[in-house]
């Protein structure tokens, strides 16, 4: 049957069971928007292409399904570079389709032409310029296959305008044909049995073990398996920024977030451990601090689906390439086999009491404000957390508010935390929250943002209002680029350079109202709870709460960049007792 390339593209997306596309039309992609009118696929019209990209990411984060974007050529494609890179760094499955000038015009510097595949080559897992309409179904299948298998990531298909208007004979490649067309792409999912056995032996022999859970747990849908492993072995778990929620914060073995702004116990447990079991984690510099000084006595078992992560930063004693869920399940079996065969797990009683000692002595801490004092951002988050309906999804931007969110929220369920970890993209939260709400319409979605972040992508609240996507945004507004201000205060002798944002402009309440949202301003601690209650009661439009918070508040604990995790800076009075972190 002859159909146009545009019809084939939309049909291929339907075949991939795409329900929602985030996009914005333009010249070269125009032909694809016509058959979209007749498709059951929902299209969400964004106000800026970067918004479409982050929405697709938020959607993918919470649903596990690939987020899909459709945008035109040239500036639209370049606007997609940031979300593509963001998705690449955080291993988020995403498929982006860009328009391109007609094949006859490629290379002539035509209107809105740019080398999209060239520009996005290093920001995607794979990309492809499709040169004939006949190739479109295969290109779409390959893009979805690559985006969602192995280590997930973003893919891009660049489609010239004449490829969309030309006709083709419809077909739909089989799984086998797709796999055969990619002879160089064979992700390893099953771990090596000998390595798994060796890992099981090391785990049972360890006296000071830590399970180091990364974002790969969530990507592999391995949260349940992780829980079984922890329960079976009684080993404590740290959950990285990308893995918050992968192991419940209310579980007695959960130590929370390690790293630069991790809590003292999580950081120190890794530092003093004799065995780190890295599960879908990549020894990011924000976790390790100064690499040669990181966890000096620990042996390392490293489970990762990407072989290139093994040994990239820290040489593992036992490398296991494979899918986290499958490997953890096999690991559990191997441990049970050893135990049944008479092996005995080493005594970690002393280690556990050290850990509980640290937890008691070094909890997260901030000084609550005295009456009449400025509002504390941590207090706002605690109130927000305690009033959040069951199953609330928290989406953050990047900076101090992100770290406080990760620290003070209690994540007891996987896929309830969405943030930009690897790339650290300011402006992520509003569009990502919209995408998350589209993916999980029955859940409450709170975006926690900074005033700096919010001003980068706030226009997408217009999209949210018009499309009836009622997200809630809490701006922790300190009128500063707060994290940069913190570094300037601590490491640049309080010389504040270009970090002060005006406290009066913009008027966030008016801005929110102008975008069709409810706007609420909060200046004092007494106003916090009523504002949150009001925000939680609104369900027919987005809400923006402008919390005016103390600009002097800093994120602690903190490992200064380039320092060892042993040089952790603790809040207030705790610093004097830091000798106990041994």
């Amino acid at each position, binding site marked *: 049957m002859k159909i146009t390339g545009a019809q084939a593209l939309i049909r291929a997306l339907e075949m991939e069971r795409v329900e929602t596309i985030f996009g914005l039309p333009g010249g070269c992609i125009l032909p694809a928007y016509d058959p979209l009118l007749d498709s059951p696929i929902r299209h969400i019209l964004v106000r800026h292409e970067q918004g479409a990209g982050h929405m697709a990411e938020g959607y993918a984060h919470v649903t596990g399904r690939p987020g899909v974007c459709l945008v035109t050529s040239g500036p639209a494609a370049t606007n997609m570079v940031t979300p593509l890179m963001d998705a690449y760094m955080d291993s988020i499955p995403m498929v982006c389709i860009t328009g391109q000038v007609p094949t006859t015009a490629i290379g002539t510097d035509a209107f809105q032409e740019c080398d999209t595949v*060239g520009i996005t*080559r*290093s920001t995607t897992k794979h990309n492809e310029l499709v040169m004939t309409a006949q190739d479109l179904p295969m290109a779409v299948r390959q893009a979805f296959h*690559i985006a969602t298998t192995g280590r997930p990531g973003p893919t891009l298909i660049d489609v010239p305008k004449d490829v969309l208007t030309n006709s083709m004979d419809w077909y739909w490649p089989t799984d086998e044909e797709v796999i055969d067309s990619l*002879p*160089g792409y064979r992700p390893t999912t099953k771990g090596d049995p000998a390595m798994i056995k060796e890992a099981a032996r090391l785990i049972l022999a360890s006296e000071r073990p830590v399970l180091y859970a990364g974002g790969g747990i969530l990507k592999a849908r391995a949260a349940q398996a992780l829980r079984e492993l922890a329960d079976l072995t009684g080993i404590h778990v740290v959950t990285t920024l990308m893995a918050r929620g992968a192991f419940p914060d209310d579980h007695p073995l959960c130590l929370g977030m390690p790293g630069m702004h991790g809590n003292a116990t999580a950081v120190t447990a890794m530092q003093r451990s004799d065995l780190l079991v890295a599960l879908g984690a990549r020894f990011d510099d924000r976790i390790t601090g100064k690499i040669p000084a990181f966890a000096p006595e620990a042996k390392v078992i490293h489970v990762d689906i990407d*072989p*290139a992560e093994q*040994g990239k930063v820290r040489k593992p004693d036992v490398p296991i390439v494979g899918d986290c869920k499958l490997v953890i399940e096999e690991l559990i079996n191997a441990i049970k086999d050893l135990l049944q065969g008479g092996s005995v797990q080493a005594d970690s009683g002393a280690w556990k009491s050290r850990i509980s000692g640290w937890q008691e002595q070094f909890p997260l801490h901030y000084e609550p404000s005295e009456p009449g004092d400025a509002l504390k951002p941590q207090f706002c988050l605690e109130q927000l957390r305690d009033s959040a309906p069951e199953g609330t999804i928290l989406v953050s931007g990047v900076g101090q508010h992100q770290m406080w969110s990760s620290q003070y929220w209690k994540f007891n369920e996987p896929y309830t935390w969405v943030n930009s970890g690897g790339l650290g993209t300011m402006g992520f939260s509003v569009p990502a929250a919209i995408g998350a709400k589209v993916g999980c319409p029955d859940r409450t979605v709170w975006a926690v943002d900074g005033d700096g972040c919010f001003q980068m992508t706030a226009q997408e609240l217009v999209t949210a209002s018009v499309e009836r996507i009622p997200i809630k945004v809490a701006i922790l507004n300190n009128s500063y680029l707060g994290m940069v201000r913190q570094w300037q205060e601590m490491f640049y002798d309080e010389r504040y350079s270009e970090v002060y944002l005006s406290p009066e402009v913009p008027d966030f309440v008016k801005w929110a109202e102008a975008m069709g949202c409810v706007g609420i301003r909060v200046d004092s601690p007494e106003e916090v709870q009523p504002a949150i209650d009001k925000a939680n009661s609104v369900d027919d439009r987005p809400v923006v709460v402008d919390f005016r918070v103390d600009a002097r508040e800093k994120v602690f604990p903190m490992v200064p960049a380039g320092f060892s995790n042993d040089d952790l800076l603790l809040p207030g009075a705790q610093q004097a007792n830091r000798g106990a972190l041994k």
Partner: protein
Amino acid sequence: MSELNHHILSVLVQNRPGVLARLSGLFARRGYNIFSLAVAPAEQEGFSRITIVVDLESTSLEQIVKQLFKLIEVVKISELNPRSSVERELLLATISAAGDERGQVVELVNIFEGKILAVGVDAITVSLDGHPDKLDDFVELLTEYGIVEMQRTGRVALPKLERLAKLERQPKDRKAG
């Protein structure tokens, strides 16, 4: 050139647009050094073989290989140990050789079993193929006369056949005959 840090990778790739850009982009982005690079279609239709000589400084060869493997079009990577592989390279050079010197250059070319491709008034163009080390020696000797222009292809390499395997195969072949 110091051979110590050099490693030869023979990379089989799907012959698709942009594959060389992906590979060179990966090297540039991760700060790996390419010493030489040769690309041509492989024996199987739709595939090319890329021979890369990499210069190891801070990165391990293992990491380079793993990163290369992440490229979707990369099908197979073999590390070729110089001791167990055959390597060849082609060189073209124009050498200034006027008067008496011409005879000396011709003699050198003959010793190295090279070819004279063109003769001008005061220069000659020669070609030489062989092991890259042999080409290095040749270039060193020619430098004395003045190299006007030179182009080397970069090395290509294949694994050396096991002599034992070769011997084993023969009787079997005969039986089959």
